[in-house]
């Protein structure tokens, strides 16, 4: 299995502490922005892939997101809310992407029909995740986006609340209600 020469070990570090340290360093030296990139590139890609459904287009929008974040980093002043800021950019870039595409109104087509040859085209690996995937696809878009932000973007509830301009408790409750509902539907379909 090929591994990037860039270490992708963001899960194992205390992200907040490290992030604040890196943000301060990146203000002094733009190259340190690369560390923020390493911290977030997987999550941003995962989030965008789940919205766009095509590997190459998701990569393209991921690159655009980071380049835009890098160029506007000087204007970033929301200490402690870097993830909210970054995923705000990612969401805007995704919307730009849909606007630019012809017939972009339903993600059905991009979920199901990769535009290009895509060897990594998402396929479900188990019966349970297949069932779960179907349930999630049937959710309203805002619910689905909440799950993406929480589980693909790996954002904390305060970060999501900040991004969505919602109350943290409300975000948390909505998420867990959503999970409980999915779990319950899954149990019914399994049993």
């Amino acid at each position, binding site marked *: 299995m*090929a*591994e*990037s*020469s860039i270490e992708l070990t963001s*899960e*194992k570090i205390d992200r907040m502490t490290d992030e604040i340290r890196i943000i301060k*360093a990146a203000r002094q*030296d*733009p*190259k*340190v*922005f690369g560390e923020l*990139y*390493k911290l977030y*590139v997987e999550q941003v*890609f995962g989030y965008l*892939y*789940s919205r766009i459904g095509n*590997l190459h287009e998701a990569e393209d929008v991921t690159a655009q997101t*980071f380049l835009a974040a890098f*160029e506007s980093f000087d204007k970033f002043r929301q200490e402690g809310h870097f993830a909210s800021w970054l995923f705000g950019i990612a969401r805007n870039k995704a*919307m730009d992407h*849909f606007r630019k595409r012809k*017939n972009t*109104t*339903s993600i*059905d*087509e991009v979920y*199901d*029909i*990769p535009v*290009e*040859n*895509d060897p*990594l*085209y*998402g*396929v*479900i*690996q*188990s*019966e349970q995740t*297949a069932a*779960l*995937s*179907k349930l*999630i*696809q*049937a959710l*309203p*878009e*805002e619910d689905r986006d909440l799950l993406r932000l929480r*589980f*693909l973007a790996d954002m904390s509830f305060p970060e999501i609340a900040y991004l969505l301009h919602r109350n943290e408790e409300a975000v948390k409750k909505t998420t*867990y209600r959503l*999970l409980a509902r*999915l779990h319950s539907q899954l*149990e019914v379909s*399994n*049993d």
Partner: protein
Amino acid sequence: MTEWISSSQFEENVRQSFAVPKIRPEFVDQVYGDLMQRAIAKSRKHHPFFRLRPAWTIALAILTLAIIGMLAIGPQRVYAEFLKLFGYIPGVGIVDQSNPIRVLAEPVSVTRDGITVTVTSATLTGDRTQIAYRIFGVPGSAYPDREDVVGCWSREYLRLADGTQLAQINYGYEPVPTSVNEAVFVIPCIANTLPGKVPENWELPLRFVPAPQDLTVMPVIELSPSPQVTLNPNATTNDTSIPTADNSVTVSKVIETSDGYILIGSFQPQSKPGESFQQTGAMEIHDASGKKVAYTYPQDVNEAINQEPGGTGWAAQFKAAGLVYPLNINFSGVHLLPSASDATAQFTFDAGSNPQPGQVWDLNQQIQLDGHTLTLVSITANSQRSYSFNFQVDPKVYSVGVQIEGFTPIGGGGGGGGLANGKFNTSLAYAQLPTGELTVDIFHMVLIGDSITWQGQWSPATPRTDLPANPTLQSGLCLTADSLTQLQPAPSTVANGKALIYEKLDTGTWGLAVYNLDGRQKQVVVPNGNWGALSSDGSQVAYSASDNGIHIVDLASLTEKVLPGAGGFNLHWSPDGTQIAYVGMGDGVINSVFVITTDGTPARLISDLSYESIIGWSPDGKLYFVAPYTGGAAWKVYSYDLASGTTQERFNIENGTPKFLNPMLSPDGKWIAYRGRDNSSLYLVHPDGSDMHLVLDNVGAVGIAWTSSGWLGVSIGTDDPYVQKVLLINLDTCDSYILNGLHGQLEGLVIK
């Protein structure tokens, strides 16, 4: 329904269900390089003399050495050496063996206010700390009684003597340093409990010791390169064309267990430009003789599965005795094809000036698109500024695109028409919900094409000599997944009685029907209800109605009565038919045991523990029930003496499923049958906890019912989620039959 608290496993499943492929390292490096070029250009402008701090210098030096190492040795070799460090511990998973493995010296319990928290085991390896703990005795009043209220969700952690906190990571907690043999396990609060209701800040001192010599650690064998695999990319399932070499299905890891293997691999269909597929069934494994290999999904190797490229990992654990190699590992699916034409259709609907969440427009609009008929059944306004379009389409249609003219959505999704009985739903979300007269375009139809099967093969490098070709069944085991195919239909002398079946009725709703055991004389008793219970004489059915009330239907007259004041599920008739035990809610209890007499006297609470299940009534006047531990997938069995009103704690069920245990006491009071941890097997145990043993191994057991004549009825799942098969087993002789006329979940059984 049992309690549900979000687990990290379920959250991981949600993550996996998005099927996001692993990010390509080349892409990561490319963007990083681009960013660095820009950064260097920016640095030159502002910071010509930037100097690295020592920490960064060290980090970069390590990174450089790693890169040089990779270039010099080669990534494959580095990876292969790395994998040699791993081993598999049943119940724990694949672990790093670079450090000596340590375990918990002894279980640790703390009891406060009647609640007991127990750390039952710990496994310390180089990459993580695995802690198993469970909680018992949390009163129902501690949990929110409304869906929109969520209790505490603080994460537990390990605290070392120097104050260091080891947080949860994906599959456990951060590793405990090898020099540290003590830690405190801290639970800030019991998950989902309300503030102030139960004690908080639980601290359990743990002590770790070297793992015993007999700890089972099985080697994890890496297969690299992957064995040859095959694909018949354009063939239908009946096609016999020569397969083409391909890498759609691969096996990457093998673990040799005591009675078989665990295989871990990935499924990544190789595609041509423009091709797309939809998987249509679960993975199947057949041996070289064509025999279907029954497998289970080993939950404890989830981490390895998730490391497979593209997030497309799979795993299977199976017994190997008698298998003929190679094994064929198959995934089935269909091609998805864009409609050949650019046909579009259009219609309008009036959403009004102020559409409300939940508002439904029943349209039944027939749409012809490129020779296919689509019916837009309805449109629903959702609470989150989106519309759902609900279609019924012909079986060849997979999905269509939908847009509302003049409005740009911010997202949406759906699909799966012909693969889901022609129904599918697609939604469009907007920053602001469009209102008024709206023009809707239907376009970009996707059709379901040929079936396709992806196939991989695997053989062990060295044939096993330790497994008998025809193993004898262990004592008490009556049926295995393999022996199911040899079952004979029940003779008429046995199949003489009635069964209560929960099934999808002809009307499309799920309800309860009573059949003769030959499948004849179907009598739909409850068109829309569940949790049925057949009285011991077969004359009445009690069920949980859609309003949660408990109703009783007399099968002869079809008259129905409602038990006043009773509401719940999991119904069990008393042997004399005068009382019904059920699980319900009341003041301060959630899903606890109640008993009500069928003449309607007020229900009485039997136990105030929460999320209980009833086992059944014994002939000596006791009611048996179980209460779950929180975490640990264990249950505590109790009996309640109706005459004295006393409750007795009996024993623990440690190998049952946490999902739907479905425990059932035999009418003679001698056996409790319940579903195993794998959600598929069936176990028996005496009510005093003795002689616990496996009776049905991995057969897909779901519904369980006993007869007073000693037969055990079990319904088992099939590949079709709407269909179950019903079996009869005589436990004294293991004589087993199939009731071919019954196809749903068994809820009650009477044999004359």
